[in-house]
């Protein structure tokens, strides 16, 4: 499974910080692979709508998180504006973003 996360928007644009971060779970140690795939499953990423939430009308500088999962021929993308209220999706984002910081 290939999972990509991107932070879009916000007060400033930084080419490297805003670049999509991709992880191929097949190339990860078993523990990390299982962790990501479990988080994807718990967040029901394959089943939730493509636009989970959008910034409020009149809002500005709000960040939007974009998660794309690819498994073989299946591809699904989810967009969610901050604050992400879906706890399971927030956990997945938190894990992926912390991982990309390291």
């Amino acid at each position, binding site marked *: 499974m290939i999972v990509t996360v991107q932070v879009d928007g916000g007060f400033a644009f930084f080419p490297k*910080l805003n670049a999509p971060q991709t992880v191929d779970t097949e190339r990860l140690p078993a523990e990390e692979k299982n962790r990501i795939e479990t988080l994807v499953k718990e967040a029901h990423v394959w089943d939730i709508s493509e636009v989970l939430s959008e*910034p409020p009308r009149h*809002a500005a500088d*709000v960040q939007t998180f974009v998660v794309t999962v690819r498994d073989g021929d299946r591809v699904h993308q989810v967009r969610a504006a901050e604050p992400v209220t879906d706890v399971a999706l927030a956990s997945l984002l938190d894990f992926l973003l912390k991982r990309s910081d390291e």
Partner: protein
Amino acid sequence: MMLKKVHSLCGIIPPYMLESISKAELANVEGRAAARRTLALTAVLQTKRRIDGARISRVMAVKDGSIPHKNRRIYTCNNSESYPGTLVRSEDSDRSGDAAIDECYESFGATFDFYQKIFERNSLDNTGMDLIGSVHYGKSYNNAFWNGSQMIFGDGDGIYFNRFTQALEVIAHELAHGVTSYTADLEYEGQSGALNESLSDVFGSMVKQHHLKQRAADADWLIGKGIFTNLVQGVAFRSMKAPGTAYNDPHLGKDPQPAHMKEFIHTTEDNGGVHKNCSIPNHAFYLLATALGGYSWEKAGRIWYAVLRQPELVKNADFVLFAKLTCEMALKMYGETEHNAALNAWKQVGVIN
């Protein structure tokens, strides 16, 4: 003894009668003294009534927005992602001792004062809207945003970013989004979105210059100065004076902002590059303000503010429309010299040929 009971604002004994008793030869010393005390008290109460009446009128006027009056409320999210959070400082309260809270409070004040003194604008909506800010949002959160009704500020990760309340122009930038939403309400997408962002930078920078009493020629024209930690090779998030030069860092990348339309960035990211292409109108404003000399808010700022409130500035306005309106406004408000300066500024950034 009867006189001692007369303490009501609507006294039973009329003042002229008390006046007579206080002076009457027939009344004993105690009676005259009591009458004088009652008269004095009545005068105090009547004055109080006038003051109370005036205060009530003022409160009502403040409430309906006819008298400008700051009403700041600062909350802490306690590093959660839930806002507004817990109220920690409100109008006229003492410093909290928490840097983010106090910076937010003071910068809200500087921004309110700028709009009120320079443009006679009563808060964001021009009817005295409360200024609400939430600080300590999230954990290591690297952003600040306007959610349509209040501002939210992160503490930064401490690695690349300090807290976002450190820069006055960042706070003023977020508040300016409020002003835009109550005026032109520019759509947050593509060129109108970049104009929306640019207006926040322009007014954010002017608030800082006004606060520092800086002339256009002396200002740094930087947005987000001081938010980078020492680890970052850069001075700020954006430079209105020299777009594309604010940072060049191994971790963040190179500042991608264009200074000219020929470098306009076509992208689907970031609502069509609103934080990238805003540099084009930003630079035009810088060029105009420095060409006119003096303080940026004296002429260039007034032209921009007047256009922001014009119905001709439609929600999906592009750079060309905004440029045309500012040039027309410069001619209308000032004359040929200012009109030509505006035209020249927009030509230099390639918006007008």
